[in-house]
């Protein structure tokens, strides 16, 4: 056993050293915005190397009693190196000059909050997602075509919401727990029975209440998206999903159980509710009308099979509002999102913030799709050359 483990640890050590060489070679070509992530990656390399060396030192102690522990440590290290190799180094090794648009936006997003301004971040290819942990750099995933455009950048605000959640996880979990208790009370039957049917109903209520843990988490991130991005977020979100799949509108009851995201139509409904309550009546109506029209064309009738009823709405609103207060994301300012002001902005004038730029982009796109591409190209150049945006 000792020889087997020595062989594996020595091989892992070689693999780590090889990756380190590649990372050092790549360092000169990475965009400046990626430098903090590169520094972190190198420190992880050191940590992995130290773990392999410790395993080899433990093997040299010659004690058979600790071999199962060294085996487990070698397994932990092997998975750590695989994760490093498959997922963590690629944002550095794949880095391109064109990543700067996203990286600049992400760096600005992180700079807006005291809990995140010091957290490095990186970009990788894939569907919108993130790996948010307070003691790790955040890796953001985005489909390659979206990385060169302005219209889908607001979806990063949702992903940033996951990072804000993880920075205050105990407080956020408690708020969700309180909401789950309220939902459990709504679902409680007026009369208690004690038979098989009652047991199966209790099971169903349990599943609904537990499912809301993940759902509130996502709804909170949507609210962070709107709080930071304003109407640009809701248009971006709606456009990305509205013609994707039937299940954005309707999901069978058995598939709703422990589903990780609420049905998208429900998310739209709650986003529109929040937008309306913050004075964006026209945008809220446009959003709801669009989704209702597509649903009607598909013959879909809105039904959440007891996982959501309007009775839950006031409690959900209250919980999300409390979570937003707790997380305190940067809120958009009126001049950054006002439709009239944005359309009147001179194309040569510099936007006051990335939020204004993203909202201007959506207003331009909605106003005249044909002229949009040329405007966007110039706007991106302006953003990349904006030295004041760190």
């Amino acid at each position, binding site marked *: 056993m000792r020889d087997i483990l020595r062989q594996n640890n020595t091989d892992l050590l070689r693999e780590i050293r090889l990756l380190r060489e590649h990372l050092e070679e790549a360092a000169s070509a990475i965009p400046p915005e990626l430098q903090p992530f590169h520094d972190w990656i190198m420190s992880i390399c050191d940590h992995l190397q130290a773990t392999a060396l410790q395993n080899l030192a*433990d093997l040299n*102690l010659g*004690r058979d*009693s*600790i071999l*199962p*522990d*060294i085996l*487990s*440590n070698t*397994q*932990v290290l092997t*998975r*750590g190196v*695989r*994760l490093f190799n*498959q*997922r963590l180094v690629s944002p550095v090794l794949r880095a391109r000059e064109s990543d700067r648009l996203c990286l600049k936006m992400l760096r600005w997003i992180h700079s807006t909050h005291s809990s995140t301004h010091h957290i490095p971040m990186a970009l990788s290819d*894939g*569907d*919108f*997602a*993130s*790996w*948010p*942990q307070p003691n*790790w750099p955040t890796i953001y*995933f985005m489909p390659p075509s979206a990385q060169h455009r302005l219209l889908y950048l607001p*979806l990063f605000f*949702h*992903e940033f919401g*996951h990072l804000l959640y*993880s920075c205050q996880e105990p407080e956020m*979990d*408690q708020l*969700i*727990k309180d909401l*789950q*208790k309220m939902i*459990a009370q709504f679902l409680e039957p007026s009369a208690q029975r004690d038979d098989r049917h009652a*047991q199966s109903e*209790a*099971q169903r*209520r*349990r599943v609904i*209440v*537990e499912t809301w*843990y*993940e759902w509130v988490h996502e709804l909170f991130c949507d609210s962070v998206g709107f709080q930071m991005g304003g109407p640009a977020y809701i248009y971006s979100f709606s456009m990305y999903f509205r013609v994707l799949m039937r299940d954005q509108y309707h999901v069978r009851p058995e598939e709703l159980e*422990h589903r*990780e*995201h609420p049905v998208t139509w429900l998310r739209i409904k709650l986003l529109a509710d929040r937008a309306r309550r913050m004075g964006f009546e026209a945008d809220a109506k446009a959003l709801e009308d669009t989704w209702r029209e597509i649903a009607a064309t598909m013959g879909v009738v809105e039904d959440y099979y007891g996982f959501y009823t309007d009775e839950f709405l006031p409690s959900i609103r209250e919980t999300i509002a409390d979570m937003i207060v707790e997380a305190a994301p940067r809120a958009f300012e009126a001049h950054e999102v006002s439709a009239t002001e944005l359309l009147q902005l001179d194309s040569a004038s510099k936007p006051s913030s990335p939020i204004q730029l993203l909202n201007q982009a959506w207003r331009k796109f909605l106003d005249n799709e044909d002229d949009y591409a040329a405007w966007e190209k110039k706007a991106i150049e302006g953003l990349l050359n904006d030295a004041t945006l760190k």
Partner: protein
Amino acid sequence: MSIQWLTVQSFQHNQDLLAAINKLSIHLRLQLEGDEDAERTGETNKAREMLSSFFREFETLVNDTERGEGMPVLGANPRLRQLARSFVTAKRNRRRFRSPLFRKGAGYLQQLLHSDIREDRQALLESLQELRVLVEEHMHVDAERVLGEF
């Protein structure tokens, strides 16, 4: 938008948990064999702190889970809920899981973590060994999602 945040958080949490178990386990074994293993003391204390915080959270989750199949476990992510359910199921499997952790619960392990008594250390070691099995079996779902299957 995918749910990778949950998978990767769970994966990393389990990796950290296993590393802490192994660190403390090696230290305890060497001490039981008469080696003070002094150079590892600092790291081992960090591992104890991590395990202590895990046991505290886990005890509450397990208590909630044991209230019955119809009772929801609140304020916990689905992967932690699943770990608590796996633990409750494992408690009934005395052939595989018979250490103090599975007989007396996570709260009892809190007391053992800082004990200097030889018998307590032995009991802690047995418990850590079985906890490792439970966590390794639990984390394969996250590992498959994060690393893929070959």
